[in-house]
């Protein structure tokens, strides 16, 4: 199977580096890192992701604003997993790792759990 293309939008360089490292070493994913949220749309146009990991709180533009921009363009159905450090793991688990049907993962993220979540959202686990 062709590696799935994952766009990771987060201002924390250490986080996007870790996600790239852990996902790509499985051989099942290709990851593009975006640390400047204002560059997300251009990166998505170039990379054509199949799924996006999107931080909620970033300087300049937050995750909601980035997603609104993508949805207003050609990425109306791009699956998204929000990444947040604003909820505890426990708090998120109590909500089945979703908020109103939108998948979330809480930082710090365990690589295995993140991969499982991505595969669930992509519908092949």
């Amino acid at each position, binding site marked *: 199977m062709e590696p799935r293309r994952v766009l990771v939008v987060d201002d924390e360089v250490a986080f996007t580096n870790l996600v790239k490292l852990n996902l790509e070493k499985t051989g099942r994913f290709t990851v593009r890192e975006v640390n400047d949220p204002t560059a997300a749309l251009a990166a998505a146009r170039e990379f054509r992701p199949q799924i996006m990991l999107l931080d*909620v*709180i*970033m*300087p*300049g*533009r*937050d*995750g*909601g*604003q980035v*997603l*609104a921009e993508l949805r207003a363009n050609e990425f109306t159905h791009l699956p998204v997993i*929000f990444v*947040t*450090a*604003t*909820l*505890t793991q*426990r*708090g*998120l688990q*109590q*909500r089945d790792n979703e*908020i*109103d049907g*939108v998948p*979330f993962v809480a930082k710090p993220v365990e690589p295995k759990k993140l991969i499982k979540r991505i595969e669930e959202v992509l519908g092949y686990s």
Partner: protein
Amino acid sequence: MQIANNTIQRDLAEAFDNGLRLRYGDTFGPLYSEVMHYRAGNFLETDELRGSLDVEAVPVLHAILNNKVEPPTLLGIRSLMIGCAIAGDQDAVFRWATIGLNRARDWGGEWTETIPQWEAVQHDPGHFVLYARQLKFFLMAI
């Protein structure tokens, strides 16, 4: 007697509140005043506070991911920033100040007045955490 006590408490709280605003000016004065009134009268045990912050964050995150951040959500963001300061979570304070600043700028109107407050907290979240915790624990001790 109860009525008298309540009146005295109210008077003291008001004097304290006014004093904070005088001492700390337009930037930190209103913020410390909100710290003072944040869940007033409750002992803030950290685990319990963390749990309530999780609950409080859900509607705020919902509004953010739907890109519908209006004044009630801005109030929620501010409350989360203050709650996280009392809980001693400096990183979370910085994050909420960041999003509060972005969204206050976007919304404009009366929220423009809060911009220096978000900026000050974002610039030195450790300072805000320290003062918020000192203030809250001082108030709970009396």
